[in-house]
């Protein structure tokens, strides 16, 4: 699972109000090469929740060099985009869990696939 995906995931247990962002507990992290596409990164940046992204990047150990806030100029800067690209698309969580911030419910991640299935009493 990439941080791009993590940024969109939220806990959907019935009654949960603050199911975002899910905390990451990493057991195994892998890096994979992805094609660098500045246009795509810029369009993705608009819908990324930066705060949640930073928290996720810290959990996956790739937050180094990522600023607390991003200005318009930085989006044109290749150096920043490279780092953003690396953390967003190349670092993958292989094994671990995602934890709902409100209920503490764990969603296991196995072989890079988050298991978001709910039990019947959570629907």
């Amino acid at each position, binding site marked *: 699972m990439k941080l791009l995906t993590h940024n969109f995931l939220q806990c959907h247990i019935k009654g949960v109000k603050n199911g975002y962002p899910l905390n990451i507990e990493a057991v195994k992290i892998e890096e994979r090469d992805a094609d660098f596409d500045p*246009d795509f990164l810029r369009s993705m940046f608009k819908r990324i*929740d930066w705060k949640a992204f930073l928290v996720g990047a810290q959990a996956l150990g790739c937050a180094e060099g990522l600023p607390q806030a991003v200005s318009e100029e930085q989006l044109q800067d290749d150096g920043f985009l490279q780092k953003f690209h690396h953390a967003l698309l190349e670092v993958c969580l292989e094994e671990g869990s995602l934890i709902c911030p409100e209920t503490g419910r764990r969603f296991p991640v196995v072989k890079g*696939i988050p298991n978001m*299935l709910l039990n019947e009493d959570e629907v």
Partner: protein
Amino acid sequence: MGKSERPEHTAPPDIFYNEDEARKYTSNTRMIAIQEKLTQRALELLALPLDGTPRLLLDIGCGSGLSGEALTEAGHAWLGLDISEAMLDVAVEREVEGDVLLGDMGQGVPLRQGVFDGAISISAVQWLCNADRSSHEPRKRLKAFFESLYRCLARGARAVLQVYPENAMQAEMMVAAAMKVGFSGGLVVDYPHSTRAKKFFLVLMVGPSSYAPQAKGLDGADEPMSEDEDVDMGEGGQVRNEGRQRKRHGKPKGSSKSGAQLKSKSWVLKKKAQMRGKGYTAIPVDTKYTARKRKKGF
């Protein structure tokens, strides 16, 4: 899956799509070709603006990632959701570009508000019309699915869901559930006059839109046979049993007095012209499909 048997009737999706079934989706060229064609058509109906920017799409019921591959080819990023672990394992093995989630669309998609530029789904949503457990209520599950889908799509985004409704009631149920949560749009039926090629697409829009999708084959035409379909029907799939054919004596079948091959296109056209000349009015018009040969069944 037998020809007449619907997979929805055999077992719940997480059971039905087991490892064996999942393998088929990587080895069966016919299945792959069909999936790819449906995805192409769904993308066409999605009608994303052609400005070259890669979009972020959601693939509901992504399975082994066949539809996702078609999305990658079209240059888009995607996130897939499926309930079958076996299918997702195959997707990961095949190293598809998008990430995949294990989840049940009937429980709602676990995604944040307004992030996706569009959603597609190939042959999946009709599963929601079945109650596979005592706790399942199709209407509730449809509602949960469409509500969460509506929420995670950006304003002005569209969702194209290709479905196999079992009957008119099911189709109506799905459309009604989608409209109830705020989608506009409706059902597009391609090749409505053909039993084989008929395909249903739920085309849904978030917010008002002037987009009017166009169905294919409304003039009664059947789906044109594509080249790749001919290819995979090729030698491997054909059974030849020459030994069973009887030797014929006398005049070979298929030639008539006039010299035109019996039942050939020229013969059919001639007969139709004759009938018209006799004053019959109910003779079908001549088209490129007239007297076209059917594909061999097996």
